[in-house]
């Protein structure tokens, strides 16, 4: 019963039920129309037949006389079938015919009548009289005789019955078949949905790697399963990312936090003078600033990777951003004994986040500045270039520094990865991860290539990056 109730609640079964009801209503209307129309047709045909016979008998009476007419009526009356015949004189005495008992209005008037009557002689034994329904035309012949010709409409009734029976049968058939079809479809649908439900239950209970099976039928359920699976992949990826972030935050924030704590503790323990305490406080402050910076960078990466609301996306003039950054860093580069060159194509636009693209560029330029120790023999040279290649915008920052070994190129983009050589440099180890996250947010790509010597960092973004 519960099973039935569940089946009943499925939309398929409900749709089938609605369909059946509509179909039945439509069938009733159609069949009623047909029955009504055909009954009128039959009635007209019968009336026409009656009128024809009346006319023949009238003419017979005029040409051949009452006797011949009576004989004809008698003969017609004797034929088996629904015919009703009566011929009588004006005093109401029957001369010929098979029915004698007519209502008064038929006997006294002329015209077409229909009425109930007691039928006799149709039954085998002739004794049983049954209720009949008759349509008759009553006329007075020129000779003064009354002629009544009509039909027992049991035939017509029969036809209506046949239509009605057919209708009931058809509706019953439709009901049975559509219920069966509906139930089968619903069960199949239920089965598929049960699979999806079971999978999502497993996922909700914690197994994020579970996926909805996709059949080879390639139907709408498979399409649904595929899109749900894609969504699950994305969610799993995000969860993974989140876990990584948490792990990294735990690791890389705890280390400096511990350092901070130790320093404060040491300062408290030492009974140093005001100056050394002040110094300790100042280091603490700068350490905590560094922490905040790391934390901000992590948040920014997380937001960019999560696909921040593209509401912040607008038309960005990449050329302008790159020129701004180059202009901002040019004095700093010069101070560090390097030169900064630009090769920026004018008015290169894309849809994106101006601040994030700017930050990515800043990170790349700062990296180029940071990891290069120029000598007289090898003066540092940083290049910033922007160009458009069909529907891509290529932003490149190049240097001629020590470069990054091929095997490390993928790794440096990961969070907190800092190559051994650079451990001593200040920085959170998040710079390139942020660049990669910005590239991803703009549906683009971040590559590290060889500038022989040095690094060629390429931010390859599509022009219309808004999803």
């Amino acid at each position, binding site marked *: 019963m519960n099973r039935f109730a569940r089946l009943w609640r499925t939309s398929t079964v409900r749709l089938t039920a609605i369909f059946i009801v509509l179909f039945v209503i439509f069938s009733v209307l159609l069949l009623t129309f047909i029955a009504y129309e055909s009954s009128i047709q039959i009635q007209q045909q019968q009336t026409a037949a009656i009128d024809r016979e009346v006319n023949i008998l009238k003419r017979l009476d005029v040409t051949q006389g009452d006797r011949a007419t009576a004989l004809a009526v008698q003969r017609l009356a004797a034929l088996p079938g629904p015919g009703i015949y009566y011929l009588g004189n004006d005093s109401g005495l029957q001369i010929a015919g098979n029915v004698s008992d007519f209502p008064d209005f038929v006997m006294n008037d002329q015209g077409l009548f229909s009425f109930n009557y007691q039928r006799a002689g149709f039954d085998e034994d002739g004794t049983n009289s049954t209720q009949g329904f008759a349509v008759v035309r009553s006329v007075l012949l020129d000779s003064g005789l009354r002629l009544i010709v009509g039909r027992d409409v049991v035939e017509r009734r029969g036809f209506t019955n046949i239509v009605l029976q057919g209708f009931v049968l058809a509706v019953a058939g439709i009901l049975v078949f559509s219920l069966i079809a509906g139930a089968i479809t619903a069960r199949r649908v239920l089965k598929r949905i049960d699979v999806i439900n079971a999978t999502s239950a497993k996922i909700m209970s914690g197994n994020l790697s579970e996926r909805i099976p996709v059949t080879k039928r390639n139907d709408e359920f498979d399409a649904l399963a595929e899109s749900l699976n894609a969504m699950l992949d994305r969610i799993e990826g995000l969860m993974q990312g989140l876990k990584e972030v948490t792990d990294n935050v735990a690791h890389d924030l705890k280390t400096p936090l511990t350092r901070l704590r130790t320093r404060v503790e040491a300062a408290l323990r030492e009974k140093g003078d005001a100056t050394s305490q002040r110094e300790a406080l100042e280091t603490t402050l700068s350490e905590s600033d560094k922490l905040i910076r790391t934390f901000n960078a992590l948040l920014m990466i997380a937001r960019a990777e999560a696909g921040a*609301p593209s509401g*912040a996306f607008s038309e960005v003039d990449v050329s302008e951003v790159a020129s701004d950054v180059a202009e901002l860093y040019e004095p700093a580069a010069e101070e560090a004994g390097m030169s900064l060159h630009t090769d920026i194509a004018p008015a290169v636009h894309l849809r994106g986040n101006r601040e*994030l693209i700017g*930050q990515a560029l800043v990170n790349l330029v*700062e990296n180029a500045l940071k990891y290069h120790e120029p000598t007289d023999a090898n003066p540092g040279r940083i290049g910033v270039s922007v160009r458009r290649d069909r529907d891509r915008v290529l932003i490149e920052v190049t240097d001629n520094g020590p470069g990054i070994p091929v095997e490390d190129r993928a790794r440096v983009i990961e969070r907190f990865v800092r190559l051994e050589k650079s451990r001593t440099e*200040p*920085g959170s180890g998040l710079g390139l991860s942020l660049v990669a996250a910005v590239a991803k947010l703009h549906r683009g790509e971040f590559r590290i290539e060889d500038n022989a010597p040095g690094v060629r960092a390429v931010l390859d973004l599509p022009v219309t990056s808004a999803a």
Partner: protein
Amino acid sequence: MKILLIEDDREAATYLMQALDEAGHVTHHASDGETGQAMASSMDYDVLIVDRMLPRRDGLTIIESLRAEGNKTPVLILSALGEVDDRVTGLRAGGDDYLPKPYAFTELLARIEVLARRSSPSEAATSYAVGDLSLDRLSRKVERAGDAILLQPREFRLLEYLMKNAGKVVTRTMLLENVWDYHFDPQTNVIDVHMSRLRSKIDKGHASPLLHTIRGAGYMIRE
């Protein structure tokens, strides 16, 4: 300066009030949005410092209703939400400046002093002068003791911003935001290099320097 601080974190508020007091400002405090709004509309303050997330009425709503009343008191929004989008929403609501938490007190102080309506020359001023240094915003000419100084466009904007806020500390972040229009956080001393270039152009060869470095805070131009 008379300041209203609307902040629900009592500890942070106490510390901030004390520090503002030491800097010579009178500070009133409201710890929830409703009280804060009532105080802001009934009394005349020079600057409002409004936390964005407050009990009973959030900061942006307060600012919006104050602006709707025609109250033009400068507002500095404090917020734990530091993203660019949040900044834009804050400024759009009628805030005049936006400072993400955690912040350095020097940064906050510099910002409210620049914001305060009493002390700033009007935005429409066409020229600024500090000592024997003058800057004409229309002809874009800069002169020191009668000698013309040639500045790059960005250097001109730097000096313009400093002179507009003459006598007040401007922080590196403020310079980056107002002169370059970026809100990110450079790790190296880029701003300092620009400042030293500017300094060499306006102060070199003059007995009294005008451009001063304020240790731990930023820069200031004054006689």
